[in-house]
């Protein structure tokens, strides 16, 4: 456990974080769970890479961070998409779909 079952491509994590935050602001733990659930346990996010990625995205202005109370009344750092992050997500999603489609076509091609 701990290691992701499927190795993640460089830069994919940023995209997944942005996507996860699209609906609502979330804290780091929430993002971990969400990615795990949505990928049906196929992807596990290592916090060793999650938090640096979150801080990098924040530093680049793609997401904003705020301390807020959770439903259990603990203080947690919530991240939400900025307008810039939203634009980035749209652009990157399109890129990703095009790229993965192309790779899939090549791998699926009958030789």
């Amino acid at each position, binding site marked *: 456990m701990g290691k992701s079952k499927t190795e993640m491509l460089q830069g994919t994590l940023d995209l997944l974080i942005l996507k996860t935050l699209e609906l609502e602001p979330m804290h780091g*733990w929430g993002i971990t769970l969400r990615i795990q659930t949505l990928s049906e346990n196929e992807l596990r996010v290592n*916090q*060793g890479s999650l938090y*640096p990625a979150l*801080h990098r995205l924040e530093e680049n202005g793609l997401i904003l961070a705020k301390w807020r109370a959770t439903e259990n009344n603990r*203080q*947690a*750092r919530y991240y939400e998409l900025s307008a810039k992050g939203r634009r980035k997500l749209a652009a990157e999603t399109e890129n990703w779909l095009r790229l993965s489609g192309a790779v899939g076509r090549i791998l699926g091609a009958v030789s």
Partner: protein
Amino acid sequence: MIRRIVRAIGDLFDRDGRDRGLDAELRFHVDNAAEQLRAEGHSREDAERRARMNTGNLDAVKDECRETRLSHTIETSWLDMRQGVRMLTQNPGFTLAALGTLAVGIGATTAIFSLVYGVLLRPLPYGRGDDLIVLHQQAQARNQRDLRFSVKEIEDYRGAKNTLDAVVEHHSMVFLLLGDNFAERVQTAVVSANFFDSLGVKPALGRTFVESDDTTEADGVLVLSHKYWSSRHGADPSIVGRVFAMNNRPHRVIGVLPPIPQYPIESDVYMPTSHCPTRSSQRFQANRNARMMTVFARKKQNATIEQARAELSSIAGQLSQAYPESYRPELGYKIAAESLHEELTSSAPPALMVLLGAAGFVLLIACANVANLLLAQLLRRGRELALRAALGASRGRLIRQLLAEGIVLSLAGGLLGVAMAPLSLRVLQRFAERFTPRAAEVTVVLGNLILRCDRAGSTAFGMFERAALDVTRPTPSDDKACCSASRARTQ
């Protein structure tokens, strides 16, 4: 970006707050992970242990988070710089040698580049300076290339209306200027009423001449040069309206020029043509051979200088036919037009280019010398660097530190060089004055300064990148050097 900088500043002042936040955030994560494990049936202790294990090295994660921040970059750069300064002060001999070499190299190129820029590259300080041209009459058979113009000739050449917007004249005289309690000889430029308008010069005070000033019946008027106004009249703002006597008639000051270099000659005061006793006499005006005036023209924006030359030449042809006694065919009469910029600098380029080339080599040699010094210095520091690497400094970190030292050195050298530049520039200026009246305008300009800093910076980067890559690369020979050095110490 602004938000980023604001936050970086906040971080710098509240380092503890930033780190506490990071701690709390990660603790929250670990606690949640432990809770989940407990829910899956692990005992409390076991769950906490596993959760911490899964997280990996918390300090490493924190470090990595911190490193994404701009404030972190600023902090480490600042540390590197301080370390660089310390290194330099610990080796004063090396530092002095390197700084001296850099300062001389950079100072020389700065001075010469300033000169080249001021004389050759900078636009003329006039509105639409590129359209200004100078006319010359030439008698080629006698090898006379810059004959002046008579009143009649100026009137004739004003006929080149297709390519020229304006044709203005200038000649210089020395007159006696009488004030209430002083009398002095002033260099007086006698110019057409539209002289300043055509050159695109706007007055600093009052106004310049208008057509109605340029008649013999009009009151005498004067425009003062900025230099004369400030040196002889203490830059008195109420000078406009003051009346002086000149050539036995009153002359009222109507304006002061901005501080621009004056072509073709530095003058104290300006007056319109009809108030110059010589220029306004009937006999002088009627004499086609009384050539006293310099003539400038402003060409139309859509006309080329070749078109202007063609139109002027056709007028010259008509003149030669109409007045054969003034333009005897055997003299080879011609009219020439040259852009003012070209005219002012045409004799300067070869000498300046040679100087610029020489200065470039001086800088090159200076850089090579400093690079050598640095390399020797770095080899001596092999052990220090090995120790740092052993203590966990990454290669990138070592290179950054060496680069910081290089930047400190180069910036200091660059500053010294720029400080030296004005000294050498004064000597150069006197030299350049022999070629071009533009030498007086030359200064060490700010844009040039930035270019200089840039060069100082890239000099540093080039040298250090190379050296740093070499020294921080672990090679067998490095190890040997280290071993033998340590053996030498134990013996």
